[in-house]
């Protein structure tokens, strides 16, 4: 009887074990890509733009029969599972959880920006699912003990001002005012710039944070003017940049150099809100499509992408559409090269093509912590041309298209 029982247990374990192996090798019907977007709230505009870019990628790969998954040696259609977090981190937390534990998505993609990504990072780590971080560049997300995150577009925000700092130093601009929104994205830029300039002996005459929902900078501009700086650097989200540039123009104050972040990413939006005059001679970080990357080895170049995206959505793409599409490309390459269909294998595959993949967003290269270090943000200046504006890259010298007009007339 005891032998018979042992045989039954053995057979049971064998069948369960074997079927388990067989099931793990069975290709899924769909590759479930789970993400969040914000249809309302302060992040609605960039979030929906990014989501549209990801949707375009899904539409494009599915029109080719799906994405090639090396682990199963076949093309599998992609199914996008998406929920609306309404720009709320509380809602996003619940919905990320739902994507992981209820929908059992194969791929998890974060919502726009550092704020809405911040709640996904610990969840992804706990549930051991790789988070494809689109534009959450907060430097605190990337730690040596967390292999479950990869930043796909843009370098970590702490690296953004590297070229800006070099530009300021090279132009010998020696009195700087820095005002930044009190969130991780802007604060890490401000800290980097502050430290680099201090080290170079540049005098930081104004260095203050403001709440991220600041919508009136008039008094701050007046206080900055009292310190008589040669350059004013404002780190903020689009709402901050719009309010800052509008207040600057209506105040009648003049500075030799004014830098804001988002004109280089959301040029049309900023131009529509603040006008050509307010942007004239202003500086920014240019990103695609202002930067034109056509020599790529992954996905479409910028020219082709613009044509295809316009056909798909009827609109000219902005940077965030590109970022959304770009994360799709990284997912695609991951699945194409990962030998196994599990999260750590995905991470390993990414390490394999890191530094070799060049997309319309630039060089994709991540460090051990998953932070993006391949893309570099040059410094550009808008100069008036006819009724509009022309963007010149003024730094670094290897990318320079024109000399900076400094001081601004």
């Amino acid at each position, binding site marked *: 009887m005891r032998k018979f029982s042992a045989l039954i247990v053995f057979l049971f374990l064998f069948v369960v074990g074997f079927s388990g192996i067989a099931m793990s090798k069975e290709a899924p019907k769909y590759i479930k890509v789970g993400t969040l977007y914000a249809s309302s709230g302060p992040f*609605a505009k960039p979030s929906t733009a990014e989501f549209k870019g990801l949707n375009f990628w899904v539409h494009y790969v599915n029109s080719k029969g799906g994405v090639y998954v090396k682990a199963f040696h076949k093309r599998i259609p992609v199914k996008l599972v998406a929920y609306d977090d309404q720009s709320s981190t509380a809602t996003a937390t619940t919905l990320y959880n739902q994507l992981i534990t209820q929908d059992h998505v194969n791929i998890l993609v974060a919502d726009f920006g550092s704020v809405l990504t911040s709640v996904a990072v610990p969840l992804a780590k706990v549930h051991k699912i790789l988070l494809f971080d689109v534009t959450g560049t907060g430097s605190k997300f990337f730690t040596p003990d967390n292999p479950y995150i990869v930043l796909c577009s843009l370098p970590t925000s702490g690296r953004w001002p590297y070229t800006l700092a070099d530009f300021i130093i090279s132009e010998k601009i020696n009195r700087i005012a820095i005002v930044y929104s009190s969130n991780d994205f802007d604060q890490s830029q401000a800290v980097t710039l502050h430290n680099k300039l201090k080290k170079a002996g540049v005098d930081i005459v104004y260095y*203050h944070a403001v709440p991220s929902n600041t919508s009136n900078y008039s*008094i701050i501009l007046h206080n900055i003017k009292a310190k008589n700086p040669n350059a004013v650097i404002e780190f903020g989200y689009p709402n901050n940049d719009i309010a800052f540039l509008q207040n600057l123009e209506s105040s009648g104050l003049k500075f030799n150099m004014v830098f804001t972040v988002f004109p280089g990413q959301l040029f049309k939006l900023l131009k*529509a809100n603040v006008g050509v005059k307010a942007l004239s001679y202003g500086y920014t970080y240019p990103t695609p499509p202002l930067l034109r990357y056509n020599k790529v080895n992954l996905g479409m170049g910028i020219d082709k992408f613009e044509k295809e995206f316009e056909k798909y959505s009827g609109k000219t793409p902005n940077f965030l559409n590109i970022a959304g599409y770009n994360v799709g490309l990284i997912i695609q390459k991951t699945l194409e090269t990962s030998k196994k269909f599990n999260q750590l294998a995905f991470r390993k595959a990414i390490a394999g093509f890191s530094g070799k993949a060049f997309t319309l967003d630039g060089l994709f290269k991540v460090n051990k912590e998953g932070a993006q270090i391949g893309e570099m943000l040059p410094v550009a200046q808008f100069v008036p041309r006819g009724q509009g504006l022309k963007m010149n890259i003024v730094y670094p010298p290897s990318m320079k298209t024109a000399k900076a007009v400094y001081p601004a007339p």
Partner: protein
Amino acid sequence: MLSYALIGGIMYGLYFGLVGMGLNLIFGVMRMINLAHGDFIMLGAFLTYWLYYLFGFNPLIVIPISIVVFLVFGFLMYYVFVPKLLHSKDPEMLSFILFFGVSQVIEAIIILFFGNNQISVPSTIFAKLFNVSTFTLFGNTFPISWLVVSVACIVAFVLIYVYFFYTKLGYATRAIMANRHEALVSGIDVNKVSAIAFGVGIAAASLAGVMGFFMIGAAFPSMGTDLTTISFTIIVLGALGNPLGTVIGGLIYGVAIMLMQTYFSSWTNVLPYLLLIFVILIKPEGLLGKAVRNV
């Protein structure tokens, strides 16, 4: 810097007095918190944007249009929602839920028609109109748009004061604010007067929207929630149910914000709410609290 913060704060505060005015007027008459208040400010901003880009209307021309449109809209809205609410068992709680729903619907409709983008009219529109971009007050230079907004706010406050204290309708409104049932017994057409007051409250909110571009930057569909919260803070500071106390609340809010931006900029958002807690602890009825039922 101190004088700039104080003078700037007064101008900023006048605007925020206008922002809170409509909410307090409606609360005073109906004892209901209009949670869609900020959304009517947003609608005023979108109307301004739309008329500017479609017909080239200056915001000063939009002011009377906006007042008429939203006065009528508010008047009709009162008859659709409020009488039924007042007959319910718990009108105050139900009004919260109802106006929250209205807020969500307004936001969704605007997103449907305008998308999620921030929108603005040029910040220099008054500079072009008056051919002067700044003005100087006690040695401090401010944008001309601040002066225009301040004057518009003062005119609005004077008109509301005249409405309350020099018109029959105003007497009736004050009577309802003091005691709705007694006003009814004394022969006042409570529903009609309340509907007009509701319309005036919505129109005041829309006026704040028209002027908003020049004080709080770009407008966007979800801006309403924050504005409702700020308005609530302001009317509690002044006195719930006393529209004129709102001006005091607005001024305190404006000056507090400007002083904080000058000296402790990263703590700017904290002070108004600290003030709110302080006022509630020390004088729960608000700074002009006695006037709650007497206007």
